[in-house]
């Protein structure tokens, strides 16, 4: 090849041809845990969640039976519902009458079945009418907001202030028992339907409006508006489908409450008129004879209770299953920890993944008990011991991570997100951990702090900090180290600051958690710390709540908390990524000052090579769960040894140079190449790269580490 290195780089890292770019997608979905997740996949996911809930299945089966019986009442019921038999009143269950007879000798089972028909008819029509009115009004109010929304809200407020059942009774009485639409409804049923529909509609309107508000705020709705799509089409095409899952839950809950309401109205006597069967009127009759023939009461009572219960159980089950389908999770966007959050969401019901992270995040800065028990402890011990034997003795390292491996249990199998990462931080040194999405850098540092919820995560390897093996510590021991010896600063400061307490309060709590000093002394130290982080007017800022501070201030407060206990190591996970660039410059200056004055070693996780060039002494580059290169900063930038590093440096915009990219994308953890993980995107790859997994090797001085088969032959471009 006679082309110059520049040309090679230009060719190699230029924009990929269309075929190349999309070829990767043939095998697996490029993002998200499960390939091929589309509408079908979502439905399957929901069904899977429902299948594992036995109560849900039972409840559904029951409702199906009830509905089936009601629909096919003439076929199923053994008798005519009005067939009286005066000689046979108040029978307990017999062969002829499975549920006995009532005060006029009518068969209870038959009346129960026809009563079910009445009650279900009421439920169906009430919900239908309420939805027909509530959906257009609710979605319009939630989407357009403004005066219409205000008016609708005040209207529903009025309805909410009236006790619903009282209103229903009044309405039902006013409407009267005269048959409305006698072909469709038995006398008295129509008035219940109208009355209850009027009650139910405002509730639906409020719920639909609330859901619409949040969906309407999503960028894809704004995108449709910017295309020029009119409001009715937006509501029909985008809003209603996206609120449909919550709507389904609301409907099942409404079904239960409407059934109860109908029974109550009929019981009082403003519902279905006798002798027409309904569960409510059966209750009323039974009530008259309760002291003498108690059995009669059990039948409608149990039926109502069970059916309503089943409706609620169904609603709850759907909420759990669909609750995982919030707009965010449907998007499939990787969370803060990349793949991790997506994985964790599938394992744990509700959204505890985020809750965990909040609790963990808070805890890392302050210290305290971790949320989950670590079952990984026993396993880690074994491998840690093995590792300690194999590892070279490096007494000068404050933190020595070896062979760190993090796996997650997912419904699709075990996913390994971090695969054999080894790091070293010496006293007073700033180590930069660089990587893009899917590199595993956040998971790595989070597992150093032992903050990953241990099922579903499994952490193995060795993490030796200050001479102690962290993976073999008990929860209590780890909590003493966390926040005190190792402190962590996160990307989003709001996730680690409690919004209900002033920062002064939180600082003092952090200080007193690890040092036994009186409150006044702690307060003085807190002000000192705020001064150290260059927060102006620290005395006054102590009384501020987190939301009263700007992003930069919050991050300083967090750094202050991290310093509160004279930490020996600071881990910063993209602390400036979410900040404006001028504020980032301030925070970086602060960190540099602190690092100098306190000789504080740091691990700085970032994707920004500029920040690394500014702050770090050593750099480790991560790709697809592994370290691919580690070197002192100046050397890494001047002469990188790994093609990925070269590509990263080449993709930084530089005036006068064409903007370059690395073709292809990061492989998914469950779909790694058999050989070198970067090989599919590497311009220098050949057969040798595909053959086998590549080991991380170092040079004699142990300063440079490289994971590349051709590192000796390649001569790569550094930063210009």
């Amino acid at each position, binding site marked *: 090849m006679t082309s110059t290195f520049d040309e090679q780089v230009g060719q190699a890292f230029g924009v990929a041809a269309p075929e190349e770019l*999309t070829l990767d997608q043939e095998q697996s*979905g490029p993002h998200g845990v499960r390939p091929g997740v589309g509408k079908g996949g979502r439905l399957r996911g929901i069904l899977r969640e429902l299948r594992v809930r036995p109560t849900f299945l039972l409840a559904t089966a029951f409702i199906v039976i009830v509905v089936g019986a009601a629909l096919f009442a003439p076929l199923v019921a053994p008798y005519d519902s009005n067939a009286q038999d005066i000689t046979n009143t108040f029978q307990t269950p017999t062969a002829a009458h499975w549920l006995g007879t009532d005060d006029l000798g009518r068969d209870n089972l038959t009346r129960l079945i026809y009563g079910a028909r009445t009650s279900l008819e009421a439920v169906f029509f009430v919900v239908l009418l309420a939805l027909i009115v509530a959906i257009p009004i609710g979605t319009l109010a939630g989407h357009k907001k403004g005066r219409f929304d205000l008016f609708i809200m005040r209207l529903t407020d009025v309805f909410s202030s009236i006790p619903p059942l009282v209103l229903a009774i009044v309405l039902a009485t006013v409407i009267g028992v005269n048959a409305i639409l006698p072909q469709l409804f038995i006398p008295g049923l129509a008035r219940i339907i109208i009355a209850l529909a009027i009650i139910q509609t405002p509730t639906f309107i409020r719920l639909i409006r609330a859901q619409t508000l949040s969906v309407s705020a999503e960028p894809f709705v704004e995108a449709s508006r910017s295309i020029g799509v009119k409001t009715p089409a937006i509501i029909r095409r985008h809003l209603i489908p996206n609120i449909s899952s919550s709507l389904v839950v609301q409907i099942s809950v409404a079904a239960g409450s409407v059934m109860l309401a109908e029974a109550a109205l009929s019981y009082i006597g403003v519902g279905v008129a006798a002798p027409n069967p309904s569960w409510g009127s059966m209750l009323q009759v039974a009530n008259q004879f309760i002291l003498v023939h108690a059995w009669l009461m059990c039948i409608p009572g149990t039926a109502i209770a069970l059916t309503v219960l089943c409706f609620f159980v169904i609603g709850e089950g759907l909420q759990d299953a669909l609750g995982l389908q919030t707009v965010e999770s449907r998007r499939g966007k990787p969370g803060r920890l990349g793949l991790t959050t997506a994985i964790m969401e599938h394992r744990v019901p509700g959204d505890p993944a985020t809750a965990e992270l909040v609790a963990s995040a808070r805890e890392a800065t302050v210290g305290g008990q971790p949320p989950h028990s670590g079952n990984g402890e026993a396993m880690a011990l074994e491998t840690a011991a093995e590792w300690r034997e194999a590892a070279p003795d490096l007494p000068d390292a404050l933190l020595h991570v070896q062979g760190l491996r993090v796996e997650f249990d997912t419904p699709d199998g075990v996913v390994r997100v971090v695969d054999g990462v080894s790091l070293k931080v010496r006293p007073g040194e700033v180590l930069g951990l660089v990587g893009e999405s899917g590199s595993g850098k956040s998971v790595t540092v989070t597992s150093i702090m032992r903050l990953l919820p241990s099922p579903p995560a499994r952490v193995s390897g060795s993490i030796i900090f200050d001479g102690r093996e962290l993976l073999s510590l008990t929860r209590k021991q780890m909590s003493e180290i966390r926040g005190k010896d190792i402190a962590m600063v996160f990307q989003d400061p709001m996730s680690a600051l409690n919004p209900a307490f002033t920062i002064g309060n939180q600082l003092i709590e952090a200080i007193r958690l690890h040092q036994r000093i009186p409150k006044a002394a702690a307060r003085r130290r807190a002000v000192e710390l705020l001064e150290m982080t260059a927060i102006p007017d620290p005395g006054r800022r102590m009384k501020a709540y987190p939301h009263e501070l700007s992003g930069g201030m919050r991050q300083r407060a967090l750094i202050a908390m991290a310093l509160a206990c004279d930490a020996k190591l600071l881990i910063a996970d993209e602390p400036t990524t979410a900040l404006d660039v001028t504020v980032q410059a301030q925070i970086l*200056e602060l960190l540099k000052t602190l690092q100098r004055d306190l000789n504080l070693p740091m691990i700085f996780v970032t994707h920004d090579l500029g920040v690394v060039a500014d702050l770090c002494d050593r750099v480790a580059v991560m790709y697809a769960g592994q370290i691919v290169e580690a070197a002192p900063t100046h050397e890494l930038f001047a002469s990188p040894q790994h093609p990925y590093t070269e590509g990263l440096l080449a*993709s*930084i915009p530089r005036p006068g140079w064409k903007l370059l990219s690395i073709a292809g994308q990061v492989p998914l953890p469950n779909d790694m190449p058999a050989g070198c993980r970067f090989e599919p995107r590497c311009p220098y790859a050949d057969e040798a790269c595909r053959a086998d997994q590549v080991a991380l090797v170092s040079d004699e001085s142990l300063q440079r580490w490289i994971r590349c088969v051709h590192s000796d032959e390649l001569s790569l471009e550094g930063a210009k």
Partner: protein
Amino acid sequence: MSSDPRAPLIEGEQIVKRFPVKSGVLGRTRAQVYAVAGVDIEVPPGTTVAVVGESGSGKTTLARCLLRLVEPSEGVIRAEGVDITHSKGEELTEFRRLAQMVFQDPYASFDPLLPVKASLNEPLALHTNLSRTERTDRIAELMTMVGLRPSTVDRYPRQFSGGQLQRIAVARALAPGPKLIVLDEPVSSLDVSIRADIVNLLADLQSEMGLGYLFITHDLALMRHSGTRVAVMYLGRIVEEGLAATVYDAPRHPYTQALLSAIPEAHPERQRQRARIVLAGDPPSPFDPPGGCPFHTRCPYVMDICRTEHPAETVLPDGGRVTCHLHQVGLELGGAPLPEKLGASTH
């Protein structure tokens, strides 16, 4: 509606956007927040204009005002010379055809329940008279134009990577055949190593189709291409505007200088030896803007007049603009002439 082909694709004249601050039981308006406080901007046909600023600068609000996604409180918006500030109905739909938008987060800008072909179909169905088969063909054409395989249109947004989905967003913006595309931080949420794909795609499309772009970004470095005009915004106003090369190499406004200085350079030796301007304090909130020049609280060259009077706009000899007393009244600091102080390269 007769449009002038030589007129700017979009032009904003003295655009102001106020948001009322309500408080109390009756929601009485207590004060006004000026998200955009009087901006003049235009995008000539076939050119790229970048609006750069940090949070609170008003750049996002300005873009949305220009597209009528948010109604401006004051000011005039013209598209190809035609006043569209109060357009409705047909006129507005026609404007929407001509000016499209690409959003920051590709995953959030697509309906997660629809396959991407439905999202691509939406603008086609609305703005063109193509039959269903014609639309399918056009969708395939658009996908190829952005470098993706047409057979993947049946997939859902979450099945694409960020870079690919953003390309589809560009395809969707191209669907109605616009002349202007507004891009709101189009690559900020993508990995650095694949940003070039989108940026180069946009450049290619521009040269092929003569598109105009309005680029909103906080990443100055990305916009350093020739021919691009850059407008720097601070607290709702444009403080400096000019050709990218000039703004970069010879910034005229202290804020621009500080902004450029704050961007860390991926070169350890140069980065650590650079003279850095680190601004004191945080970007002020639009809720409580400082009097006089809004930048005076953080400006390293602040003079007495800056605290009391808002500077007028100075038009510079090369066509750029700057809003700073230093260019009106002159420097009273250190005696050095103005151009030297602010014209020095920060790289």
